[in-house]
């Protein structure tokens, strides 16, 4: 009980900014490690700044009016109530801003659809509640399951792994700098393969094969989650992608070729 109260007090304090507990939390979209994620991040920030600019103008007028024109300060209501000129101005200006935003958005969107000339094709199938990765040309196929121990999920008091709910037994492995085309489908309900650091989110829909692509320039381990409600354990089917140098990728492929029972032999995620 005491512990419970303590947590609430902590949460209250952190709202008031009295705690430095927020240091580890991020407040923005990740810049990511692909051209796509950078483009999306920039679009996101441009839109955000434009909204801030408009917000400053609108809220300044609003708060100035709230301050200035109060009856308690002896304000008397003015009589004006229409002016087609200003209406046209504040229709046109936002319209032009939006046109300005639509142009880069159109270009980036085209890039998302450009799945041509890929070096590697991976078919990703959503299952309730795990992912299956198939390297079509290499003949490699394996499932990727949540690796967090159940006890950490069931018991809030248990110390959690660093990557609680974001860890899997067999990660998807791709080579760095290569254009990887991903094909998405589902075995049951709709899932959604979302990896924020790549700027990739694509639905896995039964009966459909959707496409997207990834090209990562920095080796590392990247994590994401299912992005579409797919039943009770929707929160428990993470996505982990390991981006490795090309030679390492070749070795990984060779190892899998040797042993087709890839599921048990798969590389363990950290």
């Amino acid at each position, binding site marked *: 009980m005491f512990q419970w109260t303590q947590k*609430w007090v902590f*949460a*209250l304090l*952190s*709202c008031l900014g009295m705690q430095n507990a*927020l240091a580890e*939390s*991020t*407040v*923005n*979209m*990740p810049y990511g490690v692909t051209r796509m994620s950078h*483009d*999306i991040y920039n*679009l996101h920030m441009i*839109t955000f700044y434009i*909204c801030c600019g*408009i*917000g400053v103008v*609108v809220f300044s*007028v*609003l708060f100035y*009016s*709230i301050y200035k*024109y*109060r*009856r308690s300060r002896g*304000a008397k*209501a*003015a009589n004006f*109530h*229409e002016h087609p000129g200003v*209406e046209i101005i504040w*229709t046109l200006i*936002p319209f032009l801003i*939006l046109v300005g935003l*639509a142009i880069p*958005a*159109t270009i980036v*969107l*085209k890039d998302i*659809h450009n799945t041509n000339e890929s070096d590697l094709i991976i078919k990703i199938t959503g299952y309730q509640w795990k992912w299956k990765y198939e390297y079509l040309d290499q003949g490699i196929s394996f499932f990727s399951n949540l690796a967090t121990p159940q006890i950490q*999920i*069931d018991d809030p008091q248990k110390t959690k792994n660093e990557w*609680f*709910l974001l860890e899997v037994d067999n990660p998807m492995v791709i080579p760095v700098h290569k254009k990887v085309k991903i094909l998405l489908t589902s075995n049951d*309900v709709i899932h*959604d393969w979302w990896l924020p650091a790549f*700027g990739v*989110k694509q*639905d896995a829909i039964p009966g*459909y094969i959707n496409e997207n692509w990834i090209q990562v320039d920095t080796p590392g381990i990247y994590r994401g*989650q*299912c*992005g*579409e*409600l797919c*039943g*009770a354990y929707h*929160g428990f089917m993470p996505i982990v992608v390991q981006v490795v140098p090309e030679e390492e990728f070749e070795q990984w492929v060779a190892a899998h070729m040797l042993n087709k029972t890839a599921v048990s032999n798969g590389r363990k995620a950290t």
Partner: protein
Amino acid sequence: MNLTDDMATAHDHADHGPAKGLKRWLFTTNHKDIGTLYLLLSLTMFFVAGIMALVVRIELFEPGKVWVTPEFFNQMTTLHGLIMVFGVIMPAMAGFANWMIPMMVGAPDMALPRLNNWSFWLLPFAFLLLSLPLLRELVGMASHLIGLNLFAGAGAAPDYGWTFYAPLSTTYGPDSTDYMIFAIHMMGISSILAAINIVVTIFNMRAPGMTWMRLPMFVWGWLVTAFLLLAVMPVLAGCVTMMLMDRHFHTAFFEAAGGGDPILFQHIFWFFGHPEVYILILPGFGIISEVVQTFSRKRLFGYSFMVAATITIAFLGYIVWMHHMFTTGAPYAAQLFFMYATMLIAVPTGVKVFNWVTTIFKGELTFETPMLFALGFLVMFTIGGFSGVMLAIAPADYQYRGSYFVVAHFHYVLVSGSLFAIFAGVYFWLPKWTGHMYNETLGKWHFWLSAISMNLTFFPMHFVGLAGMPRRIPDYALQFTNFNQIATVGAVIFGLSQLLFLAIVIRSCQKHKAGVNEHLPDNVWDGGRSLEWTRLPTPVPYHTFETVPEIGPNDTH
């Protein structure tokens, strides 16, 4: 002159006022009684769905299972969404429509009073049907505690989110889905009947001289909303009927294995679903227009542009549904069309915000509770509008969609949008309805607590969403903990603050029932321009405008 006439008629009617007891409410055809019923239903469901939200928030207080299973968590999010949309916001707006539209257009009642009774009384049963599987489950759990096993083996309540995407809700749905399907049919019929009634009333019952361009904005907002309802509720009905066929009659509309198409479901659902968001907000826009001009003691700025903007928003609202489906594999051309159309909606919405701000500019402002809620609406709805523009940008939507960013966005437009508009409306008209002035201090407390806790709850959701937290998950990675705790604290404060609102409303109703007469002026806020303020006494009698009023150029919006 008209005023005294009406007081006289009210007096004549004292002997055949409302019937007594339960019969009054069951058989009433009086628009004010039916309005009250809608509002009471909405208030009740507000607390029911609010408790569900708190279950969700408390489960999300920290990583790991706090107290409910993932299965139950999904039922809570689903029913919270369905009930808040169909059981709280829509009935509240219908309550205002019933109360105010006849008085605002100078009519004695709605055009189709018996239909009106029927369209209300469908609703409680619809929500009973929708909640039955959950009640069954809760009774089962309780009986288990005392050693009985009632309803053992009965399935879960609806658990696939308020959007009930196929095939999760069809092939994989629990048995209770059929309850939901028929509940939605009943709500749909109720909404369609109410919409017909509103359209007919506004077209045919306007007093002489009440021309289109003299209609109060609230009436305009509802007229446009009624047309939206008429167009899209049948589509939703079709959607759930196809689900029913898939589930029980071996069709495969949405089942890929049978040659069906899960994406078809989303097209149909969002063809309803996007106009639905305007159904939830346009009457609120109307309320805000009334409140803002009243407390600025100034005519609404740019009335004709406000009308045009409302109609434009509704029209564009029909052709943007695929912005909910940018990541479903939609072709480039379709994405472009829907992205442009969606961005375009920002223009008329912006016009509305600019006109409200200009109405306030050089006004003579006072800050009673209705105005506070209206100003809160202006600021926070605009923030929700900004995140809406961000979501419209299709490539960026790849990152936002399905994340907590979306949850933050639609709670800014629905809680500090629609719900704040409803609060503003209740405080605005409650004195007129009851003849009793609510406690202003408590009202202000209600506003400030709600506004602050609402931001505490929903603002951090932008952050976790952008950082990668998916929506509708019962448990989350460690990096999201802090903001989720803040959100939970905010939600608890928000929930408790609503008890103030309940107390304020109950107090007003009690005083009204006890017949306390505070002799409030007819124009309670000295700035009201529509007929209920200028032509009717406070409190408004049970029957109004039995003699037809003449509307002149001075009775403008």
